[in-house]
């Protein structure tokens, strides 16, 4: 079984550009100010590809996958 991962947001870097939501809509929504709301729990295996795309798309490099738990 592969190790579970979670998405970590660098909240000081994040400016709410919203590209994460575009690249991984199943993992991100946005609050009323445009900042991402990350889905709870570990990233499902079938969403990892989208998560990695969102990480690369973030213009301020605020996203990272870290071990869950």
């Amino acid at each position, binding site marked *: 079984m592969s190790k579970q991962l979670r998405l*970590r*947001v*660098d*909240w*000081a*870097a*994040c*400016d*709410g550009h919203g590209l994460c939501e575009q690249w991984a809509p199943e993992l991100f929504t946005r*609050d*009323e*100010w*445009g*900042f991402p*709301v990350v889905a709870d729990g570990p990233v499902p295996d079938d969403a990892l590809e989208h998560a990695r795309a969102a990480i690369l798309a973030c213009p301020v490099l605020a996203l*990272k996958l*870290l071990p869950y738990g």
Partner: protein
Amino acid sequence: MTAAAPPTLHRLLAGTRPDGRPLSLIEHQNQHGVLPAPTRHDAQDLRDALRGAGLRGRGGAGFPAVRKLAAAWEAGKRGLVIANGAEGEPASLKDRTLLGRNPHLVLDGAQLAARATRAREVVVAVHEVGRLPVVVADAIAERRRSDVVPTRVLPVPARYVAGEASALARAAGGGPSLPALHDEPLAVRGPNGRPTVVLNAETLAGIALYLRRGPQWYGEIGTPDEPGSVLVTVRSDRTPALLLELPIGIPLRAALDAATVDTDELQAVLVGGYFGAWLATPAALSTPLSHAGLRQAGGVLGAGIVMALSRDECGLRATAEAVRYLANESAQQCGPCLNGLPAMATALENLASGAPPEGTLERVIALCGLVTGRGLCHHPDGSAALVRSALMVFAEDVIVHLAGDCHRPAGKALNVPVVAR
């Protein structure tokens, strides 16, 4: 009903002067004895001696102190120990009183923690305003020759988040006093890759006492799991703010009695601090003042703060004042906190006003969920926890406010600083 007040202990504050002048090194050593000399396997021996001591952090989170020391040791690099005397809780008196009256007991604890991790440096963080930077610097100078680990004082802004562990670690490395992103615990890997152990001033003083006097003496008071004494700040609208040293596990009522608070007049107490929780009285009066006791009752020991709210004060208004203060104290780094906390304060103020617009309660609840877990530090989480506990403990009040009725003032029990902005 007021029982005989329990005597205030004198352990952490033993031999200190009521006028607040600090003990000299000689006076401190006459009171507590000299620091245990380094042994052959000093770091190992000190960590072994602390294992099972049950010493938990007194800054807020109550994390076992020995686990931080072990983590720093296992990280395999020599780092630093930060003594946190920069308490952000405006309601607390304890750390500034302890450091002001006997800086040497805290410095002893910091030396021992540094020796236990083979740290290269001790940094004592205090608010830059007031006399503490000079008191601590003088104390450091007095003991320079006998200290094993070099020590310096770090004055930081007197802001709420400046005392947060990652903000202190950042400031100790020459950065701004703002919370920092850290994907690993600071004790494992802090700024510049250095293991950074941040321990509250009272926690360090406890370590110094424990390692000098041993587990038997230390555990003569307290509970089996949480031995020793605790510094408690008691506030109410009717009594002067008071710092007490009490046995851990003593009922909440005893702390209020010792501070001459009339418990018959109370409706609730806020325990822990602004990141703490409201507990309804009289049910909470028998709750033991310990991590375990307060947790079981839905509260926290936090920074040892007990704020008593009278029946003629409005808990929702008092909470709204505290949340507005916390919103203003945001480091303004993280979007969800920067936007969400002012919105939460406004929604709560609307609710507390007694004339809330449609959907106000729903908005308060939604914002609590929205801000939680979405910041570099726990500032939004702590603020949301306070609001949630207020909604639960003052649930009947919420209904009254929604119906458009409230005539009670916020009162002064929470000692919310007036912020001019």
